């Protein structure tokens, strides 16, 4: 094979190589997003005669956006998400970092077993995990409430007004710690051993090494996991939906995605649901960009 022939081929090759990605992106991301935006300016309005008439799809402009943005339940959903995220995100990341550092510590024993044990919950599907925890929360099936009842302390209101946020966050933390731990742990393993050795020769304790050497160096991994956790929080749907039949605390519009589901399928208003989806997606994008910008300096600083 001669060089010029290779160069000629090279001119077409890049397009061929990106083609599958572009095709998949257009077919499964760009087109659906475009369709959602199109649907969001449509509406089902009554036309025709008869006692019922028939609803037809017509253009309604920004009506659906106005209804979404003025719906107090939509914003209340974000409020509940914020409270939920305040509990679940720091705890998930904090525990993941702690476990990763412990696994990375040379003196730890049973590392392989611990790593698998902590990672295992991530392999349990979210709905299964929610049901599993749901049974452990309900007063008459909960082993925890059984213990407290036997001790004369009464039942723990896991699914009551005060307990619902920690209870839901617990499901997410239990499932999410392992995944985040693996990312941070992988990043920790990438740190050259000389750095820790040098600090140790200087007389630094393991705590100081972790705090001043390891954590700054895994900052990019922390930013990445933080971003995933934030986006994951905005997309919370499965856990509250699964626990909803078990408690009156969770309404059908508890989080924004549940409101979108209700509008689309229970109220049969797909256009309104599309508008709310577009708002949610745009908001998620904006928050992600802002977070990345804010943390970029810190993340890169760690690599310097």
């Amino acid at each position, binding site marked *: 094979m001669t060089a010029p022939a290779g160069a000629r081929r090279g001119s077409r090759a890049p397009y061929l190589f990106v083609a599958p990605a572009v095709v998949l992106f257009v077919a499964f991301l760009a087109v659906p997003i475009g369709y959602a935006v199109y649907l969001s300016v449509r509406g089902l*309005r009554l036309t025709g*005669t008869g006692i019922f008439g*028939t609803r037809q799809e017509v253009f309604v402009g920004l009506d659906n956006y106005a209804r979404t943005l003025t719906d107090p339940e939509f914003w209340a959903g974000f409020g509940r998400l914020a409270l939920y995220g305040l509990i679940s995100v720091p705890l998930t990341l904090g525990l993941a970092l702690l476990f990763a550092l412990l696994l990375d510590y040379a003196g730890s024993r049973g590392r392989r077993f611990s790593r698998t044990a902590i990672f295992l919950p991530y392999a349990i599907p979210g709905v299964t995990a929610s049901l599993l925890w749901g049974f452990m929360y*309900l007063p*008459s099936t909960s082993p925890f409430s059984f213990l407290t009842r036997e001790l004369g302390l009464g039942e723990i209101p896991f699914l009551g007004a005060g307990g619902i946020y920690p209870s839901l966050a617990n499901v997410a933390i239990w499932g999410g710690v392992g995944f985040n731990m693996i990312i941070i742990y992988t990043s920790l393993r990438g740190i050259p051993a000389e750095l820790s050795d040098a600090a140790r020769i200087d007389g630094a304790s393991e705590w100081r090494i972790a705090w001043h050497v390891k954590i700054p160096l895994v900052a990019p991994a922390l930013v990445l996991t933080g971003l995933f956790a934030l986006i994951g929080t905005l997309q919370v749907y499965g856990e509250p939906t699964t626990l909803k*039949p078990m408690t009156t605390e969770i*309404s059908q519009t508890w989080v924004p995605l549940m409101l979108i589901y209700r509008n689309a399928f229970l109220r*049969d208003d797909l256009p309104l649901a599309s508008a709310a989806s577009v708002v949610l997606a745009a908001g998620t994008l904006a928050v992600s960009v802002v977070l990345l910008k804010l943390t970029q300096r810190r993340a890169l600083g760690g690599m310097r």
Partner: protein
Amino acid sequence: MRIRGASGSIAALGMAALLAACSSGAGGGDSAATTPAAESGPVTLQFWCWGSGQKDKVAAFNKAHPDIQVQHTDVGGGTDTAAKLLTAGRAGNGPDAACLEYESLPAMIVAGALADISAHTGPIKDAFSPDVWTLTSFDGAVYGVPQDLGPMVFVYNRKRFDELKIEVPVTWQDFADVAAQVRKKDPEAYLATFAPAEFGNFAGLAQQAGASWWKVQGTTWSVGIADAPSLEVAGFWQGLIDKDLIKAQPLLTPEWNNQLNKGKILSWPSALWAPGVLYGIAEKQAGDWAIAPLPQWTAGDARVAFQGGSALAVTKNSKHVQAAATFAAWMNTDKTANDLQIAAGEYPASLAGQRATSTSEPPKLVGGQKDYWQVAAKAAQNTIPHISWGPNVGTASSAYQDAVAAAVRDKTPLADALKKTQQVVVDDMKATGFQVAGS
């Protein structure tokens, strides 16, 4: 070479997929083109329905009809089926026939999802009482064949009633007294549950008291979800909840099932399909339960509403409306179908099916009750005729569930929750373009 070979085969795969897509598209076009003509050869119908007896009924139909073959899929209960049918209908890949609860029919008609089968139902109309027939016919069009009925009855754990030496309540006042007795005799037990998600149950109780949630005159609707009788019924349950005489909690959760199995929930004022549901979660209590007429507001009355019950409808995107209508008719008028339905614990909508119950065994949960079908028949004969459901029952149901759950949680009046539901329903109807009276 290996790489080029691989990409070549990927390209070939892509071509194959494209070809497959093209040919299936052409196939769809062909069958659409032949629709108006007489159908030749066996027709295959897709059919969605929940319920334990459906599989056997469909198998019996297929055996009796070599030219129409039906494929049955259980896509979930009444609410799920309705939601999925709307979505699939819009996408053009809905089934040919589906079961629908009576209350969701108007919403389906407004969405343009159902076919008018009045041209095919002439011969079977007389197999149903006129009151039952009006459940599926609107303005001369017929949107389904009635399948089963859910007249409301009082379903109770007779064994526990006997143990605690309490009487079956005849009026709602008795019901409140019995609820208090239960709390006194067994502090862990409750007579019944008030479940915030049970929209259809509350609608039935309100209708029994004289409420009329939707009415239409000409093209003008009126909504009465917060009318005087409804508020009165809400006040009654409010009193029971406030005094902790009944348990306000969701139904059919692991928690509730556990309490039921322990004999701590003594009754479920619901409908004739309830023994089948309860048997599924409390098999060990087979024979312990019984049904009685639902309590009344005035002693001596016998009127009750329907809760649930379903019809078999044909969808508008079916390419075989006639075959589907034949199927719908057979499933609900043929003797074999009725017998299978009764065996599954359903109360048939057809007159012949109802007569056949007199010689049938009661469902297993109430196996010890000799007069089960007589009590059932009496309830069915005293149902309130022509209940009118509105075009946005789904919206009403979801608004009701949220408002009532919030009221139970925050200990705010149930009456306010009904008013809030009413507001949501009226606003939704106006936004869609309906004329609503009094606004």
